[in-house]
């Protein structure tokens, strides 16, 4: 959808904000880069929930909308 950058960087939307990711990067790699533990969060990509087992297989593309959510205190 949106343009990929010349140097292999792509822009995605991450938790509501623009984010530069590496083209062909898997979601697992993204999480690692962000220092996040995949066991306590859930990933939604383009409105689809991504199973934990698939995180290492799915590769980011420019324009992907990623939501990383977890549990917080709430009543």
């Amino acid at each position, binding site marked *: 959808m949106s343009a990929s950058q010349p140097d292999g960087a792509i822009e995605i939307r991450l938790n509501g904000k623009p984010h530069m990711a590496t083209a062909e990067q898997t979601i697992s790699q993204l999480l690692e880069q962000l220092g996040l533990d995949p066991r306590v969060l859930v990933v939604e990509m383009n409105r689809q929930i991504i199973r934990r087992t698939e995180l290492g297989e799915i590769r980011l593309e420019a324009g992907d909308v990623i939501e990383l959510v977890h549990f*917080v205190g709430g009543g």
Partner: protein
Amino acid sequence: MAVTTTDQPEGQRAELEDPLVIAGRRFHSRLILGTGKYASNDEMVETIRAAGAEMVTVAVRRVDLDATNRESILHHLDPAEFFLLPNTAGCYSAEEAVRYSRLGRETGLSDWVKLEVIGDQETLLPDTAQLLEAAETLVAEGFTVLAYTNDDLITALRLQELGVAAVMPLASPIGSGQGLLNELNIRLIKRRLDVPVIVDAGVGTASDASVTMEQGVDGILMNTALAEADRPVLMGHAMRHAVRAGRLAYLAGRMEKREWAVPSSPLEGMLA
């Protein structure tokens, strides 16, 4: 109502086998707690333990990528100790609530959800039309749905028809602390439903919890009454006792009220 007093030498420590059963799962405590608005995670955990709650609700939110502390509340609430119930707080449509429910389930803890669909920002009252729609979808997807609703019997009956696991009418608006404003509606709901009825929202202090349980309902969910007490841990202890007190009083069957007095000491045997 099979209530058995456990055998033991000292009456004052007698406890009762009177579990809360929702969707086949047994809980010893009839008190469910929210985990929001505490001054610290330590205070939250200590309060929950003081209250003796086994089930606690959590919200589904984005990881805050700007914060240094990005830890999930799971770092503080061990799923081995507490049963975590994801909620859909903050959702204003069936679609949104379904999305949050699916995300919550994906954590892998359970397929339970405390379903809320809010209809108004000021009062946080539920939108029952959207609620019914979301409940139908989620039940079809295999969720165990505990539905936060208002105190309307007709909506409660419809939720039960749709297959929810528990109906959760409010006592008064979320976070208001006004207590049980309409005892009659809660009694009507309890009398007519077969699924558990858990009063959710509005309890402000211990006596509110007791009076609510005395209507015969199966449990109470609260958050603000503890988190905003001057001393939350102490209030946790208070609520543990209050829920049990109200439950036991309901089971014990209260005396009739009388307009006139009746002496507690014998009338015979007075001196001349």
